[in-house]
């Protein structure tokens, strides 16, 4: 069940906004495509990224995928648990598999993101 309070990018990242802090991770569809995740490379706290920029990458045994910002912001927290347990991304992509939290540069940025329903349609089309 795709959580309804999330927004999604075409690159399969999700964004949850609470006040001006955005939490970012990858979708259930994305983690399925990647397979068992073995490692995730996340940026340092304090780094600033623009919408669409690469903020890290995620590796499974056979593939590497870049992670793209769904909005602009400054990294205020990263999920340290993923260092020892990257499989959380597979097990709970919308919860414990969250990757970074950013202070959003602005809130209009999110206009080009999809709702949960739109995202579900989007991935159906891709297949």
């Amino acid at each position, binding site marked *: 069940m795709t959580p309804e309070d999330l927004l999604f990018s075409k690159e399969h990242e999700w964004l949850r906004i609470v006040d001006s802090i955005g939490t970012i991770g990858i979708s259930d569809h994305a983690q399925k495509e990647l397979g068992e995740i073995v490692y995730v490379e996340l940026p340092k706290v304090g780094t600033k990224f623009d919408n669409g920029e690469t903020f890290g990458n995620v590796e499974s*045994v056979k593939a590497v995928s870049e992670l793209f910002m769904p909005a602009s912001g400054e990294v205020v927290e990263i999920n340290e648990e993923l260092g020892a347990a990257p499989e959380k991304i597979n097990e709970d992509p919308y919860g414990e598999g969250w990757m970074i939290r950013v202070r959003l540069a602005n809130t209009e940025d999110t206009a080009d993101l999809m709702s949960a329903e739109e995202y579900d349609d989007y991935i159906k089309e891709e297949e």
Partner: protein
Amino acid sequence: MSNNERAWTHISINERLLFEEGSAGRRAFNVPALDVPAKDVTELIEPELLRSGVPAMPELSEVDVIRHFTRISTWNYHIDLGLYPLGSCTMKYNPKINERVARMDGFAHAHPYMPAESIQGALEIQKTLENCLAEISGMDAVTLQPAAGAHGELTGILMIRAYHESRGNPRKKILIPDSAHGTNPASAAISGYVVQSIPSNRRGTVDLEALRNIVNEDVAAVMITNPNTLGIFESEIAEITELLHSHGALVYMDGANLNAMMGITRPGDFGIDVLHINLHKTFTTPHGGGGPGAGPVAVKKILEPFLPIPVIRANTDGNFFFDYDRPKSIGKVKAYNGQFGMHVRALCYILANGPEGLKEVSEVAVLNANYIRAKLKDVFAVAFESPTLHEVVFSDRLQASKDVHVWDIGKRLMDYGFHPPTVSFPLIVNGAIMIEPTETESKLELDAFIDAMRSIANEAVEKPELVTSAPHKTRIGRIDEAAAARRPVLRWKPD
């Protein structure tokens, strides 16, 4: 023999790591006693620069060492055991005479810095090999420096860069087909170029029209494989090379598939400016479990000034020497002069075959692959309808409906006593299975392989779990690669 009888389990002995064996005081080798005055080493070297004791390594007797390595060797599949149908790897038989000649004293014990007059035999072998490779590939000059195919690619791209720089503009891009091997874009990137992908068309070959739209004066070169990674000969290759040349760009060819064309056609004749040759593929130097290989590079005259140093030349009295006086050379790509031990083996192979022999090699390589294609095309989906040469690509499309994928098919093949074919490559075919038998396989072995594949195709429909949970007869099952990658253990440590 029925398929169930082709391969069976067999007693093989378990063996721990060296570091878990041995005991203090054992030794397998002694050197002659010191014949110069003994001294305490601490009088010659500051004690703080010395180890306090000895490294923490196991102590073993000769029998321990022999048992250990012999036992673990029996766990390996290898070419002397059976077929490796690996596409693009050209896993052919490794002639035993090659091993004998490479071990001759004058070769094995020669130091690369000996003066030229005392190593004429080695230089002659290298020069003769260069000449043979140039003739086989239709090129003008060869360097034997690169240590492997990927290293040869890097060398070739660096020469292309030097060529463009000498004309005032290194240019920016290298074009690579989406079907190419991963080392191609990596080599381009390390040489300071940006990579742009060229699409393949419905026939599986380079889309010439699309290429026409992309080629401009920013393109330094295109890197092409011919026949391509699908085993298909790029029939428009002459048009492709002409297109690139008309824009002042060069054409690099990955020579991995040379086994399809020796004595039939030559890269130099269809417009290639530079290519690397994998001695461990076409010229049967042994794979050694993953190296050493060798990747000589052959070039046309325009690139000759840029060859890495040293270049072997003959002076007026016919003696060979290493020429370092090459002002336009790209420099050194490796210390000394290349993987000489592999050069000896490759030359022995070429001389054992002669011109008729090499042509026969390619003819039968192509025959064997087409035989497999003909006998499997009704049960496995051929990726592209175009004629293929020395390798053929199927996909798992017909099996995927039962959730049986290429890697499962590969694993199940092990139970039949075969090594799996190349799977999941090239990337442009979903669920690709690439098969290249080579000419050193007999019809008997090919038929056994075909029977096994047909049997697995049937199992994929009738009992798919048997395939998806394979292998069943090997010493060890599928290893949990995700766990191994998450928390990597890359060495033994004492508890």
